[in-house]
């Protein structure tokens, strides 16, 4: 059971980064469906940088930059040129998928150097890792995962406890009002979409650097799309996003586990659960009256000052 929970945390990590990335993006009022593309860009560039340099920091930086570049294309099109966010996001996913398999074609099947593998080995945090269940689950993980915990805390504080976070939420709720109160809407959108892209890139890199340190095409396997759904599942709350990532990570490996335990339920029906759960959450969330559970009001709308 504990080993299952540990595996669930690992399976949930790429989802966590990508979900937080999309969450930040959506808080700025932009729906970016290019998560899968940005993850793949991050995964491929991170892997290649790691393979060439053998330096884990270089690998992570490359992933951040690659995800950020993907997001920059999206940001320029949707903010400055006010293009349709849905279609632009889809274009980014197609572009990112092609980009990743193109730049990664010479690396298929290649294994990362040991310097990186050892860097991302599991590290026990003394004291905390002795707590039953929770210890081995959360505090016997790799350094990348610990980074994920830190980011959840940072984003939570940023969104709910700082002036800038409040401004950001204002931009997402009502760009025109935010503009009127002197917030630089364009700048806020750009910055947070870029941060979001960088996080998605990290999510992809987790797959290619930690989960499977071997390059393979389409390594993210549709996780970017689950991340888009998870943002809704988590009702735009970073802490709930963490819980959701663990749950979805667990569900994604549940089928195989059940089979090995001799329980004969089709793995494919179990695989369906995360998506069914999202649909149910989607429907239920429309009945929720609590304001903080609702999507940012201006989500998906381009902001053109003269149309106020």
């Amino acid at each position, binding site marked *: 059971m504990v080993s299952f929970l540990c595996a669930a945390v690992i399976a949930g990590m790429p989802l966590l980064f990508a979900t937080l990335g999309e969450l930040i993006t959506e808080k700025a009022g932009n729906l970016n469906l290019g998560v899968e593309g940005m993850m793949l860009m991050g995964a491929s560039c991170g892997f290649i940088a790691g393979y060439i340099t053998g330096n884990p920091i270089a690998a992570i930086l490359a992933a951040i930059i690659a995800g950020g570049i993907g997001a920059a294309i999206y940001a320029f099109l949707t903010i400055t040129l006010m*293009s349709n966010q*849905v*279609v632009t996001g889809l274009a980014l996913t*197609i*572009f990112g998928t*092609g980009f990743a*398999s193109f730049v990664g074609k010479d690396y298929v099947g290649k294994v990362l150097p040991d310097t990186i593998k050892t860097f991302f080995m599991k590290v026990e945090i003394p004291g905390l890792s002795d707590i039953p269940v929770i210890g081995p689950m959360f505090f016997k993980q790799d350094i990348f995962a610990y980074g994920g915990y830190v980011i959840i805390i940072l984003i939570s504080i940023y969104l709910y406890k700082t002036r800038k976070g409040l401004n950001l939420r204002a931009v997402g709720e009502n760009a025109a009002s935010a503009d009127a109160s002197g917030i630089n809407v364009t700048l806020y959108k750009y910055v947070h979409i870029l941060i979001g892209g960088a996080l998605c890139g990290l999510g992809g890199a987790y797959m290619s650097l930690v989960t499977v340190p071997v390059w393979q095409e389409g390594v993210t396997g549709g996780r970017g*799309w689950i991340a888009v759904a998870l943002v809704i599942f988590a009702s735009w709350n970073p802490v709930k996003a963490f819980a959701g990532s663990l749950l979805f990570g667990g569900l994604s490996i549940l089928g195989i586990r059940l089979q090995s335990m001799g329980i004969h339920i089709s793995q494919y029906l179990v695989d369906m659960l995360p*998506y069914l759960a999202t649909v149910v959450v989607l429907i239920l969330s429309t009945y929720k009256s609590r304001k903080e559970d609702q999507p940012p009001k201006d989500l998906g709308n381009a902001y053109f000052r003269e149309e106020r």
Partner: protein
Amino acid sequence: MINITKREDLSKQKGIIIRIAAIILSILFTGIFINLLGYNSIDVFYNMVTGALGSEMRLQKTIVKAIPIAVASLGILVAFKMKFWNIGGEGQIMMGAMAATFVALNLDGFPRALTLVLMMLAAFFFGAVWAFIPAFFKVKCGTNETIFTLMMNYIAIKWITYLQFGPWKDPNAGGFPKIATYPDNAVLPEVFGINIGWIITIIAAVIVYIFMNHTKKGYEISVVGESLATAKYAGMNVKMVIITAMLVSGGLCGLTGMIMSSSIEKTLTIYLSNGIGYTAIITAWLSGLSAPFAVISSFAFAVLIQGGKFIQIALQVPASVADMIQGMILFFVLGSEFFTRYKISFKGQKGGEK
């Protein structure tokens, strides 16, 4: 100072010119990119075009590829015209293919024409049902259709996987997890060496064109897309309009699934659609949501896909180049739309404006 104003009076010609300019720019841009990566871009493009259109057989293959993209695009554009972001084409295609397969495998011995018509009806119906679910919740509780339709894709694909590995597994395949191949009476006949999907495409395009431009329902769909407030003020039954449009949209995607399963694969597999539902969104958008142009842009994309496969063999250039070109073209066209909707004027500092 740069001044941006909304444009109201753009001639159709100018719009088309801007679009074509964007496509040319995107090709130039990708060309430079390909060169930077150490390939000869002229060679790559030349081989892509000849690989897709260079001989009768290649052209036939390209058209076969274009058919499902075109029919799905027609479906997608009906929903998009209403600003209902149906990105669930993939799932609707799969469910349509499932229904067609059920008919095909259970009606052995029926006359061919009857079997095929029943398959089409079943596929249309199931695609429509799969689209109805998100549409229903959209009008009932206002759920976000983008995510809902997307989730329906995954549910459909997992469901088909379950069928393929479980109840529908062909017992004669020696334990190999595949669904039985269609009997001959369930396979689309060929005309001019291409399955009659191309005739269905043309008929569907004409019907969608007439539906969208010359019927009351079609008009209502575009009004709902333009302005919900106007539609309500004019006394339209907005909920019914949304449901109808999604039934048509999903139905056409379902029909796509039938055409694919009955011509290309001759069975149902989890890889049947393989992203056509997403590609169709792009082609629909590139066409400016117009039925005849959707057929043209679908063909252009089939050239890209087919050409991409060809350069992989001919020049050892990975087919993913074609994916990147697709993304690039779309980026440029999306960007160019700014110039069709807004006017930019440059004004001197003296003009009193800040």
